[in-house]
């Protein structure tokens, strides 16, 4: 296949990838979008096989490894529970990063196969592109591994910080640039290996100081990195499908990070520099006093809801932990049978990744047109009878609007307290991630339901 023809096909698959993302603008067109994505991938892979042309005996191994990878991927995709999506996505990012590193090394060792010159005499531009692809890929890999371990709970979610951390990171970043320069001027493989090793270290150091609830930002950021790594390799391989895709994924992840930061009213650098939970917590525990709260049981909650005409559900990460989404849907079904209007309100950073709650509710068969984003629904709380907060905490704290001293001041929150009554399902009065007391607990119209989210929801359903 001629180089021009295959370039055109790569362009086609790039366009199909754009359409795949475009499809996600609404759930109706999304499945078609996914199909475009698959089609684009099939075209890109087929064209690659055809353009290499003269198949060596390596072909059989290529096919075997492709098949093995595909089977593993398919198996994971069918088995993974929806609550584990953040871990899965973090894990997948690490694979993109690692394969970028492998391809970069492979191109470095055998540049003739990629038309990049001979070993020891690789074109300057290719060398720079390779270094960028390998470095970003390595950062993505080790960073995603840490994110995965933190999400999975194998590693503690609390931020790990040490003295001189930022200085060390800055030093390492500068050394990447120096190493790239040395590599280009000497063509010595040793600099390439050191470059990759340092990049692995940066990814590791970059993610360990970030706390568990900042994971939405981290995952989005790593998503973005995996895109830039792909684009770097795309430049090396002079492949437009990879360049287009890399740019798309890179900007997609960057936008998601921005949305997540906005949802927490924190700057991107504030999140990256880390240590939020650790520093604020110590400040707030000092002035802790026992204040009276009203607590109730499932019967009280059922009574309140039965007499309501509209209920707004506010789910959070705790719902995912308790696996309460199905029990919740059953409760809502019962409410609807009693002609009570039920909607769901979702805060941008509810859960551990962007859109996490929406997927869980969709899994529990909640129709997506009953689920609303913060700005769509926030005015409705004043007219609703009952707000049912399940597994959310900081995102409902009215302090964010009233107390400029509070660490979460200025963060957009759901106006839950404006409801006639608030039901707050929670295990205890312990503060949320931000380490501050939730004023909502002590309001007159709040009834605390101390229990496991799933069990409480089931009990309420029985009492309805």
């Amino acid at each position, binding site marked *: 296949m001629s180089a021009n023809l295959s370039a055109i096909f790569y362009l086609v698959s790039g366009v199909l990838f754009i359409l795949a*993302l475009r499809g*996600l*603008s609404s*759930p109706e067109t*999304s*499945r078609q979008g996914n199909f475009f*994505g698959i089609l684009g*991938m099939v075209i*890109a892979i087929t064209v690659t*096989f055809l353009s*290499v042309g003269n*198949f060596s*005996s*390596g072909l059989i*191994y290529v096919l075997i*490894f*492709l098949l*093995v*990878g*595909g089977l*593993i*991927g398919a198996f*994971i*995709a069918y088995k993974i529970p929806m609550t584990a*999506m953040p871990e899965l996505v973090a894990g*997948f990012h690490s*694979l*993109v990063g690692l394969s*970028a590193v*492998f*391809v970069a090394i*492979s191109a470095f*060792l055998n540049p003739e*196969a*990629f038309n990049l010159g001979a070993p020891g005499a690789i074109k300057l531009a290719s060398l720079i592109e390779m270094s960028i692809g390998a470095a970003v890929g390595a950062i993505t890999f080790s960073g995603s591994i840490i994110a995965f371990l933190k999400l999975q709970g194998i590693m503690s979610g609390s931020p790990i910080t040490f003295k001189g951390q930022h200085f060390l990171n800055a030093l390492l970043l500068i050394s990447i640039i120096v190493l790239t320069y040395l590599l280009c001027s000497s063509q010595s493989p040793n600099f390439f290996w050191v470059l990759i090793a340092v990049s692995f270290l940066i990814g590791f150091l970059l993610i360990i100081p970030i706390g568990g609830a900042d994971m939405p930002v981290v*995952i989005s950021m790593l998503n973005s990195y995996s895109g830039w790594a*792909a*684009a770097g390799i795309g*430049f*090396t*391989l002079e*492949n437009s499908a*990879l360049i*287009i*895709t890399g*740019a*798309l*994924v*890179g*900007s*997609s992840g960057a*936008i*998601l990070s921005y949305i997540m930061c906005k949802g927490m009213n924190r700057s991107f650098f504030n999140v990256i520099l880390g240590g939020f939970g650790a520093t604020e917590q110590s400040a707030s525990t000092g002035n802790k006093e026992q204040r009276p709260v009203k607590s109730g049981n499932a019967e009280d909650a059922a009574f309140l809801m039965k007499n309501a005409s509209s209920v707004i559900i506010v789910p959070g990460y705790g719902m995912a932990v308790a696996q309460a989404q199905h029990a919740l849907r059953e409760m809502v079904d019962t409410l609807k049978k009693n002609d009570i209007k039920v909607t769901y309100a979702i805060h941008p950073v509810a859960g551990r990744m*962007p*859109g996490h709650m*929406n997927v869980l509710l969709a*899994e529990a*068969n909640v129709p*997506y047109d009953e689920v609303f*984003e913060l700005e769509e629904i926030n005015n409705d709380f004043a007219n609703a009878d009952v707000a049912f907060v399940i597994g959310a905490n900081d995102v409902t704290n009215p302090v964010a609007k009233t107390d400029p001293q509070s660490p979460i001041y200025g963060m957009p929150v759901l106006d839950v307290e404006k409801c006639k009554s608030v039901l707050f399902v929670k295990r205890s009065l312990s503060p949320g991630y931000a380490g501050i007391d939730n004023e909502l607990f002590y309001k007159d119209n709040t009834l605390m339901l101390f229990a496991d989210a799933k069990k409480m929801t089931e009990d309420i359903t029985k009492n309805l």
Partner: protein
Amino acid sequence: MEIDPFIFRLSIFILSIFIGYYVVWSVTPSLHTPLMSVTNAISSVIIVGAIIAGLAGSEDNVFTISNILGFLAISLAAINIFGGFLVTQRMLQMYKKRKKDK
């Protein structure tokens, strides 16, 4: 003077960033998780580089380090491609509209 092909690739890259910017802003927030899993799948188009690396060997030796890294990268990218698209499909199938006649 002839323009270096790199400049054309750079143009594609820059324009694609803008396309990505506008396309992603139009993605509805409720589909942000599928967005992440599908971007994951498509960024694994890096597999084209892995295939080139894997096929590059000569008849007598298909197991140079360069080839082996290619094979491994093929597997990793394939996990992502199949896993990413299938899990996206699985998620999207769950998004349903309210039934009218209820």
